[in-house]
C-alpha cells in the first residue's frame, strides 16, 4: 500500500467531514478516511490523536464513552455546533485555496 503524504490542514478537515454523518471512535475515523480515499491516504495515529485533542480543546468535537462493534469500551467523537461551523469555514477555505491552485495548474 503506497503511503501518500497528506496536504497540511487537510487532516482536520477530513476528520470533521467524516464526523458530520455521526459520532465515530478514533480508529473508525482513521479507517473511514482510509477507505473513502480508496486506500490512498493513510491516517497516522501520531497525527490523528493530537489533531483530535486539538479539536477537543477548540470545542469542535465532544468525546463520550460508548461501546464499539467489537464490544469494547471506547471513546466516540461527536461534532458540536462550533465544529459544524468550523467545518463550513474550513471547507470554503479549502475550496478557495484548491481553486487557486487549480487556476495555476490550468493557466500556467
Amino acid at each position, binding site marked *: 500500500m503506497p503511503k501518500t503524504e497528506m496536504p497540511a490542514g487537510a487532516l482536520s478537515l477530513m476528520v470533521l467531514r467524516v464526523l458530520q454523518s455521526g459520532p465515530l471512535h478514533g480508529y473508525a475515523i482513521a479507517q473511514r478516511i482510509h477507505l473513502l480515499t480508496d486506500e490512498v491516504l493513510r491516517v497516522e495515529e501520531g497525527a490523528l*490523536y493530537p489533531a483530535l485533542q486539538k479539536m477537543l480543546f477548540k470545542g469542535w468535537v465532544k468525546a463520550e464513552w460508548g461501546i464499539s462493534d467489537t464490544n469494547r469500551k471506547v471513546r466516540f467523537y461527536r461534532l458540536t455546533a462550533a465544529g459544524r461551523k468550523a467545518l463550513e469555514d474550513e471547507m470554503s477555505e479549502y475550496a478557495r485555496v484548491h481553486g487557486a491552485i487549480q487556476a495555476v495548474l490550468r493557466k500556467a
Partner: protein
Amino acid sequence: MGEFWRRAAYLLTKWKRDRELAEEMAFHQEMADRRGAGSKEFGNELRLREEAREAWGCMWLDHLAQDVRFAGRLMRRSPGFTLAALLTLAAGIGVNVAAFGFFNLAILKPLPVKDPESLVRFHRLAPRNYASDLPYPAFDFYRTRTQTLSAMLALDFARLRLQGVATPLRAHFVSANFFLELGAPAHLGRLLDPSRDEDPAEAAVAVLGYDLWQRQFGADPSVVGRAIQLNGRQAMVVGVLSETFSGLTFNGADVWLPLRKQPEFVTGSPLLTNWSADEDGVDVWGRRKPGVKSAAVEAEMKMLTAELRKLHPEEGWQGERLMVAPGGYAQSAGGRNRSTGPQPGLRQQLAPIFAMVSAMGLLILAVACGNLGSLMLARGVAREREIQIRSSVGAGSLRLVRQLLTESVVLALAASGLGLWAGIQLLNVLMRWTQGPKWLVVQPDWRVIGFTLGVGLLAALLFGLAPALQAGRGLVGQRRSNLWMRKALIGVQVAASCVLLILAGLLARGTREAVTRDPGFAYEQSITVDPGLGGHGIKGAEARRYLEAAKERLLGLPGVEAITMTSTPPLGNRSSTVGGEKDGKQFPIFLHRVDAAYFQMMGIPVLRGRVFREGEKGVALVSESMARRLWPGQDPLAQWLGEGDNRLAVIGVTGNARSLALSDPDAVEQYEPWTEEDLGSMALVVRMAGSVEGRAGDVARAVREVDSVVTPSVQTMREAFARQVESSGKVALAASGLGFVALALAGFGIAGVVSFEASRRMKEIGIRMALGAKPLDVMRAVGQRFVLPVGVGLVLGAAGAAGLSQLLRKELYGVSPLDPLAYAAALALFATMAAAAVVGPARKALSADPVRSLRQD
C-alpha cells in the same frame, strides 16, 4: 465554554484524561493489529501522548513540574549551598520586608478604627500661616452646617493631676461622638455617649485608658461608677477603654473626658469660646458621607469659611482656607504644630527617612543578590558537564534557561517565606525597642506579602538570570565572559556594602559628635519649667504675676543659681518658626522670645553687638549661622529683619545654639525680646549650682505651690538631651547592624569566589609551585584578578555614599556627610576584610600538594 475554561477543566482532570488517551490509543493499536493492516509499530506511545497533550498548550506545566522536582532534588543534594543561599537571600529579603512593613504601617495601612478611609483631617492653611488645629467655636460652626460630612470629631489634650499621683496624667478631651464614630470598643462599662455627654449640664464623666487602669487602679473592675479627682474636680468613671483602640493620634492618653467639660478641669481655659486663630484650638476630623469626595468637602468648607469670615472678620488669617487631608492613617496622626511660613507635611518630613531606609534595604538586597549570583555562577561552571549532557540529549537552550531560572525561583520563594518571617520578627523587635504605640501591630497583610513575593522574584531574576543565560548561550568557551561577570558581581557587592558601611559610620560619628560636642548652650545644669499658662486662659498681667511669683519661689530653693524666661525652652517639644528666604530658597528660622538674661544664663555667647535691654522693642539678635545664610560677606549689624513698621534692627550676633534642632546643622535661630502677648506661653529655665540629679521633683513641688490650678511640666535638660541622643544612637546602631551584615555577606561572597577560582586553577598552581614559584607569587596570581573589581567597587561605594549621605545631613549633628574619617574607616575596614577574604582561600590552595593536584583529572 471558552478555551480558557476547557483548558482549566483539562488541567483539573489531567491524570484521568491522560489515562483515557492511553486507553484509546491501546484500543487503536489492538484494532490495527487485528486487521493486520497496520502491522507496523504504533510508535513511541509516550511521545504520542505527549504530542497529544501539547494540543492543550500546557506542556509548560509538565516541564514546570519537572523543573521544580529537579530543583528540589538539587537543593537537597547540596545542603551546604542551599543553606548558604537561603540564608543570604532571606537576610536580604528580610531587611526589605522590615523596611516595607514600617512604611506600610506609617503610610499605607489605615488605622484600626471604623471605616478609616472616609475619615479626613482638617488643617488651617494661609499663604503665611499654618496650624493643625482649629478654634473650637469654628469647629462648632462647621459641624452644625456641613452637608458633606456625616460627623465631625474634635480633640484637645491637657495634663491633669490625679489625686495622690505625682506625675500628671495625659488627658484627651474629645467630642462626645469620638468613640462611637470610630467604633472604639470598651473594655469595661461604657464610653462617651453623644446623647448625654455633649450636654454641659450633665455631671462630668471620665473614661480610663487601659494602661492607667492597670497601673493606677490595679485592674479593679469596680472602678466603674467610682468618682476620681482630676485637678481637684470630680469626675465619674463610666468605663475603661479597650487596649486595642488606636485613637487618631500617636501619643495615647491616660484618661478621656468630654470636650465640653474641658474648662471645668483646666481652670480658666478659654478653649471653647476662643475664636482667635493664633491661640490653641482643637484637632478636627470629619467623616465623609458615602460617595462624597474630598474635593467636595474642601469646596463646602471654602464656602463655610467665607460665611464664617463675614461673622467674625477679625479672627482669621489673610487668605485662610481649610485643607482636607486623609485622616485615618498613622501619617495623619502627627502631633500639633503651627508655624508662619511654609509648612512641610509629615509626609515630606518622612520622605528622606523612607528614601534612606529603602535605599539601605535595596543595598542589602543587592549585596545578597550579588553574593548569590556568584555562587550560582560558580555552580553553573561546576555543572557544565550536566548541562552539556542535557543539551546533547536534546534540550533546547530556551528549555535550559528555563530550568535554571526555575531553580532560582524555587530558591527565591523558599527564601521569601523565610525572609517574611524574619522581617516581621525584626520589625517587631524594632517596634518594641523604639517603644512604638501598642496598637501598631506588625502583621503581614496582603501588601507585605505581595511585596515580599515581588522582592523574592526580583531577586530570583537578578541572581538567576546571568548564570541561566550563560548556560543557555554557549556552554563551553565562555569562560572569559564568565570571569568578567564574576568580577562584576564582586564589584556590585563591594560597592553596595561599602555604601552601607560608610552611612553607618557617618551615623555613628554623628551620635558620638552629639555626646562630645558642645551643643552651643549649657544644658547640663538646667531644669525646664513649662507652666502652660495660656491653656488656663492666663495671660498678660496675670501671667506676669504668676511668673514673678514662681521665680521668687524657685530662687528661694537651695541650689538655684539663676532663672531665665523663654517662649521655647531648649530641647522641648514646643517650637515656633518663621519662614526665611534667600535666593528663592525657603527655610525655617527658629524664633525664640526670651528675656535679656537668657544668653548669659544659657551660655550662648554674644559674638558681636549687644544684648537687648529689658523692655527694648524693635530689635533682634540672630545666630551666626543665620547671619551667614542671609547676609554672606555683609555686616549683619547693619541689617533689618522684616519690613515696614514691624521691622527689627539686628543688634547682635550670637553663637549657634541649635536648642530645638540638635542634629540639624542647617538650623538657624532668631532671638527677640518677649512682649506682653508672649507671657501666656512663657516657660522658665532654672540653673542649678550643683547636680540636677533628683532636683526636678523639688522644683516641681515648689512651682505647684504658686497656683493650685496650673500644672507645670518640669524636666531636666539632661534627660531631654539623653533621650534625643539615645534615639540617634539607636538609628546609628541599626545602621551599623545593617552595615556589618552587608560586610559579612560581601566577605563571604568574595571568599567563595576566590576559593572557587583557586580550586579551578589547582593544576596551574601545582605547575607553578613545581617550577619553583614563591607562595607569594602564586597568591598574587590568584588574587590579582580580584584587585580591580574590589577597587572599582570601593570607589563606586564611596561615590554612592557621598550621594546618599546628603539625605542624612539633618541627622548628623554637624558631622559633614563627606566626613573623611567615616569614609576612611569604612574603606579601610572593607579593604582589610577583602584582603582576608582573598588571602584565606588562596593560602588553602597553596597548602595543597602540587603533585596531587597535578594528577587530578
